[in-house]
């Protein structure tokens, strides 16, 4: 470890945090999908860019990035003098090698292949210049490699020998050779990851000497650990926990702008790329009036207050508010108006039967829909109760189907569904999320090749999608993206309910400075990434940290001792009584 190797016994400071609930699937950065893994890579592998608090690309390995005039070539200027943790210099060649590997090797592209699918050629022109040639103009190139959701750059000299059998590369030689604010020194799957600080980190040294991420499967266990001083920080608590911790004077609880949405998808017309109808979706859902009525009858505000206890925002647009540059709100939001919803339906000819369920005049079928929810998602279950109730009010009958994620996705891909609960989070580059609403992601006629999210397919939307890809001016691009969101909003196929706030909690007595940026009027901070949080965090006072820990374990032993004595005493007393009497 670089820190404090020669120094006399100065007590080193440790930041103890709960690992992202998803955990680390694998430490192989080419294969990993889980957020816990991405979070870790962000700390131990460098990327070309970083993200500033507004979500825009900032300098990291690259100090400058410029598109060429034809907008097909990007030139990144790579910082010089940086060294991997094993002392070898970091050069443009490392980045070029990493990106090329992902472009050319199918296995290497498992996780991030789609980010570079438009790349023609990546070359290192000298140690400080990286040139990326794209097939078509691509505005999002500066978003391709950034901490968290972008591509981490790996040291070529370490990975080159592994590239032949990348699938089996577990990347488990510690300390991991990398570069970042931290160095991974120890890792036990599903238990913890230990890091030491890289005090020479180019974007500023971490204030803690060590970082420990501990895995908790249950949120309550993590919170209990936080309360008892086992850990200092946990990102991502649920609203109930948040409210409870807000009331705790020892705990700092902050809200950050949400980077995802929770919403409803409607199978309005499942079909293949060639337009062949597939699946068992209810035909009436193809009617925009019906979808509009569903939107009108949904009381999103109630969902915000009841399901997430008010810690979130009402949803409209398709992209979450975490990325203000793309955030869009409709000029005329659809209100909650069940009466109007009923009117709309009446007008469209959906007549109510004796049982209160309307009938589709075209197919003659009642408006009875399957409503798929994720069985492992508490919010889905909670929301579904409300939605069923509201839809009943307007003569629509929903039958909840609680399905495992896999089953749900498999139904979705086959078009065997009517309504689904859905949720997405996204990084700063909206391309992918927008992409899955384009016609190109519909399945082929043989059922394969699909990656659509709701079978949405709209020519105008696709046109704009292509346009935003090549719009290099951020403002311009935002406008195009706004138009796309408008189309989606009007179609009512993806009905966004809310954007839940990110909820982070930390111990006041041990850690400060975790949050980045300034809160808005509601006290909500900008979206946070682990990269900045752990980099900014500073020990509150080293001594309190030590004390809290010491007293915790001391108490434990006292309590354990007392319990033991009580048990033993009880046992002895019983023994006396049982065996003492000299009779049979």
């Amino acid at each position, binding site marked *: 470890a670089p820190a404090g190797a020669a120094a006399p016994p100065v007590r080193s400071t440790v930041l103890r945090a709960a690992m992202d609930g998803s955990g680390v699937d694998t430490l192989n950065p080419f294969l990993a999908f889980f957020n816990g893994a991405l979070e870790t890579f962000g700390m131990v592998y460098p990327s070309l860019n970083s993200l500033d608090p507004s979500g825009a690309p900032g300098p990291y390995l690259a100090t400058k990035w410029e598109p060429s005039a034809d907008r097909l070539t990007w030139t990144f200027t790579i910082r010089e003098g940086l060294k991997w943790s094993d002392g070898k210099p970091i050069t443009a060649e490392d980045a070029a090698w990493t990106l090329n590997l992902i472009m050319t090797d199918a296995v290497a592209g498992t996780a991030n292949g789609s980010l570079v699918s438009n790349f023609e050629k990546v070359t290192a022109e000298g140690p400080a210049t990286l040139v990326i040639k794209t097939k078509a103009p691509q505005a999002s190139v500066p978003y391709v490699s950034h901490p968290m959701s972008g591509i981490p750059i790996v040291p070529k000299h370490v990975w080159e020998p592994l590239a032949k059998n990348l699938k089996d590369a577990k990347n488990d030689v510690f300390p991991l050779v990398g570069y970042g604010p931290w160095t991974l020194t120890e890792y036990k799957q599903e238990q913890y990851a230990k890091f030491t600080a890289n005090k020479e980190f180019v974007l500023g040294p971490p204030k803690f000497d060590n970082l420990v991420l501990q895995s908790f499967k249950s*949120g*309550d266990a993590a919170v*209990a650990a936080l309360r008892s001083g086992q850990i200092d920080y946990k990102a991502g608590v649920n609203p*109930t926990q948040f409210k*409870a*911790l807000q009331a705790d004077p020892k705990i700092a609880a902050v809200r950050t702008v949400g980077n995802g949405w929770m919403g409803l998808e409607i199978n309005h017309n499942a079909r293949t790329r060639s337009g062949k109808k597939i699946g068992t979706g209810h035909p009436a859902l193809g009617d925009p009036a019906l979808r509009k009525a569903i939107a009108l009858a949904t009381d999103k505000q109630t969902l915000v207050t009841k399901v997430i206890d008010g810690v979130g925002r009402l949803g409209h647009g398709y992209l979450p508010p975490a990325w203000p540059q793309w955030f869009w709100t409709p000029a005329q939001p659809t209100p909650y108006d069940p009466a109007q919803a009923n009117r709309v339906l009446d007008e469209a000819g959906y007549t109510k039967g004796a049982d209160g369920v309307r009938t589709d005049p075209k197919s003659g079928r009642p408006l009875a829909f399957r409503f798929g929810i994720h069985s492992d998602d508490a919010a889905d279950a*909670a929301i579904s109760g409300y939605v*069923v*109730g509201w839809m009943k009010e307007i003569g629509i009958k929903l039958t909840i189907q609680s399905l*495992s994620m896999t089953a749900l996705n498999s139904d979705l891909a086959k078009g065997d569904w009517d309504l689904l609960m859905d949720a997405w989070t996204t990084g700063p580059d909206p391309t992918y999320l927008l992409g899955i609403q384009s016609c190109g992601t519909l399945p082929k006629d043989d059922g394969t090749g699909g990656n659509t999210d709701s079978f949405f397919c709209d020519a105008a939307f696709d046109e704009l999608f292509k346009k935003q890809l090549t719009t290099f001016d951020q403002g311009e691009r935002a406008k195009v993206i706004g138009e796309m969101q408008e189309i989606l909003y009007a179609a009512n196929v993806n009905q966004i309910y809310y954007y839940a706030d990110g909820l982070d909690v930390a111990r006041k007595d041990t850690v400060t400075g975790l949050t980045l940026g300034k809160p808005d009027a509601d006290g909500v901070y900008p979206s946070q990434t682990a990269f900045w949080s752990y980099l900014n965090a500073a020990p509150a006072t080293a001594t309190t940290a030590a004390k809290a820990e010491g007293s915790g374990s001391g108490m434990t032993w006292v309590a354990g001792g007392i319990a033991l004595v009580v048990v033993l005493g009880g046992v002895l007393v019983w023994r006396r009584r049982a065996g003492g009497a000299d009779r049979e």
Partner: protein
Amino acid sequence: MKRSGLWGIGVLAAFALLALTAPLHIGDDQLDVVRVDGPRLAPPSAAYPLGTDLAGRSILHLVIWGSRESLSIGLIATALTVLLGTAVGLLAGHYQGRIGQALMHVTDWFIALPSLPLAISLSAVLGQGAASITIAIAVTSWTATARLVRAQTLAVEARPFIERARALGAGNRQVMLRHVLPNVMPLVLVSSTLTVASAILSEATLTFLGLGDPTSVTWGSMLQTAFSGGAVTAGAWWYLMPPGLAILLVVLGFTLTGRAVEHLLNPRMVQHA
């Protein structure tokens, strides 16, 4: 011993009554999240004797309502278990030739399957919901009944009255249905009360692991919601305790009843009473 059996029966009767009469005093408006207007996760008060859940519904109502599904899953699973187990055990015990051997092997194989993982796997495969949980429980617990019935069948068939019946000309069916079954059934019934107990526990566990239907109201799903919803952090003991205690009471009720009946049936135990 007898007194505890009475307690058990009392508890069961109380829960059965609650479950059966629940629709009479709990209306849709008290369970439908859209219509209730209680405070979110409020501690017990006069209006809500056991507090409210995350949607503002009365925990008391939920617990009462939950008894319906929890009990019926337990009972149906047990009925399936007893049916399957008794049939297999009886046949395996009676036909000690190849059929019996084969049946016993099947039973042994199933016994070697760990019940919870099997149930988990089964309900993961069958899909979420009460039906698959019920099936999973039945599939994993019939072996115990089959073993018991087989052992009892062997014991009964070794007794002279079977030989007498055979000497009188009784065939396999007569021996099995008229002589063995009546002598085996009391024990099966006793063991089935214990099966209900563990079926209810299994239901809660499977639901807790996320294999149940999260929108239905059962004790298991209440606990699951409480657990995933952060009730522990919020210190919402009123949300955590009632469903757990309800499970405990019902399971204990079945267990005590079963043991009391067993006590009555097993003269050897009575001798020492």
